[in-house]
């Protein structure tokens, strides 16, 4: 990615990664990603805000070279994760006078993870400022978006908030900014929601606090470390407010796997029963599911049903994986249930329930049957659908959805 000017003496110097398909060997990247790094030149000092993934260090160095950068005084590290800090050691070799500016927690992590020596740091406190000459940076400590050491930088004169992973999206695109068209805005919001779901969702409490803090700042531009820059900060701030709110939608996520179509028949029946009752269903056939899509659906859903057959006396590993992920992401889901079919026995419900201990949801009685569903089993699924509907009605979700659709 070529270096691009955002405003006078502020450039984006990071890297596009069109081809990367998987992040953390876990998260699918259907639209690639970017590692954004920003260069700010004051009248006296020059600062680089974050670096890039080590695999893309040459791109960053090319960009700095193309801008004729001879000196970097400060490398601001918002986050110790290697996709942003990974090039710091190379930069410190090239610019040995540069100081790594960060908070005390991040300093420790950078020392542990990328082996930066103690004398290279300048430790800052929350709300401390740093002058570059005509450009003043204010540091805002914002732990848990998404590691304990994360922080933000506000460039006062230009009213730009540099947020690192907070508000980010895994979206590689030619344009530096979010486009003005409705389609462009929708595209980035979708990518940002996926990113929120996969990375930020467990930290709703902290995000809420940070959004409150940011109300005191007049922000004209949000520049994250992944994905495009937001020229309309409210676009992403409003979306985050909605995602972290306690509100849920009249939606039932059904994450299932079936081996010989017994569980599948149960799921098909349950889907129909829920649709007939006016509930919005989001089925995910787990072996064919992009886990990012499932995580996104979990952002808003009121209810989650896990469906699985037994394998060697336990739940199918695909369902175990989904339950583990659900438990780790801790969505605001209010109701949970399990359906499934066994061949001759097993401990599926105990096992899956045990994996979901972090979820504060109310358990709606599971429907576990032997073999292919028969009339009595289908009746139990009707009862389950009724129970889900009653919960949604009781929470006023059904009516709300009707209003929204209208």
């Amino acid at each position, binding site marked *: 990615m070529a270096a691009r000017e955002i405003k006078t003496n502020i450039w984006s110097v990071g890297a596009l990664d069109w081809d990367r398909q998987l992040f953390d060997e876990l998260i699918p990247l259907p639209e690639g990603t970017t590692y954004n790094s920003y260069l700010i030149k004051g009248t006296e000092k020059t600062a680089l805000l974050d670096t890039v993934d080590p695999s893309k260090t040459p791109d960053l160095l090319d960009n700095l070279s193309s801008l004729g950068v001879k000196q970097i005084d400060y490398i601001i590290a918002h986050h110790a994760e290697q996709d942003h800090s990974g090039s710091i050691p190379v930069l410190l070799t090239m610019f040995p006078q540069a100081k790594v500016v960060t908070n005390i*927690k991040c300093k420790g992590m950078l020392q542990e993870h990328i082996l930066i020596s103690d004398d290279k740091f300048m430790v800052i406190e929350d709300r401390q400022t740093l002058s570059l000459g005509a450009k003043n940076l204010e540091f805002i400590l914002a732990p*848990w978006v998404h590691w*304990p050491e994360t922080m933000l930088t506000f460039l006062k004169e230009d009213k730009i908030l540099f947020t690192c992973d907070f508000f980010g999206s895994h979206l590689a695109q030619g344009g530096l900014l979010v486009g003005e068209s409705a389609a462009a805005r929708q595209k980035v919001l979708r990518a940002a929601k996926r990113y929120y779901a996969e990375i930020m969702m*467990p930290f*709703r*409490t902290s995000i809420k606090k940070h959004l409150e803090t940011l109300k005191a700042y007049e922000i004209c531009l949000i520049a994250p470390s992944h994905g495009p820059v937001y020229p309309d900060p409210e676009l992403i701030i409003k979306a985050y407010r909605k995602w972290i709110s306690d509100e849920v939608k009249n939606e039932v996520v059904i994450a299932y796997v079936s081996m010989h179509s017994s569980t599948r028949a149960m799921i098909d029946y349950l889907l129909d029963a829920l649709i007939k009752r006016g509930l919005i269903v989001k089925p995910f056939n787990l072996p064919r599911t992009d886990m990012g899509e499932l995580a996104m659906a979990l952002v808003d859903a009121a209810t989650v049903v896990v469906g699985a057959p037994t394998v060697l006396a336990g739940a199918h590993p695909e369902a175990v994986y989904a339950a583990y992920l659900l438990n780790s992401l801790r969505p605001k889901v209010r109701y949970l249930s399990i359906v499934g079919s066994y061949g001759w026995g097993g401990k599926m419900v105990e096992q899956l329930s045990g994996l979901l*201990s*972090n979820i504060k949801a109310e358990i709606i009685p599971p429907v576990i049957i032997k073999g292919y569903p028969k009339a009595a089993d289908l009746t139990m699924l009707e009862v389950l659908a009724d129970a889900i509907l009653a919960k949604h009605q009781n929470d006023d979700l059904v009516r709300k959805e009707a209003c929204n659709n209208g």
Partner: protein
Amino acid sequence: MQKYECKVCGYVYNPAQGDPDSKIAPGTAFAALPADWVCPVCGAGKDQFEVIGD
């Protein structure tokens, strides 16, 4: 004062020690922690904690 355990990661909040990272002074009861206080190890909210006794 009672200790509380984070059910997500196992961290134990000990009121006698407080939580220096979040500037919580020693002697602060769990109930007196701010509503937006989070587990210093995993970032989980107060609702993920359970009392484990003195």
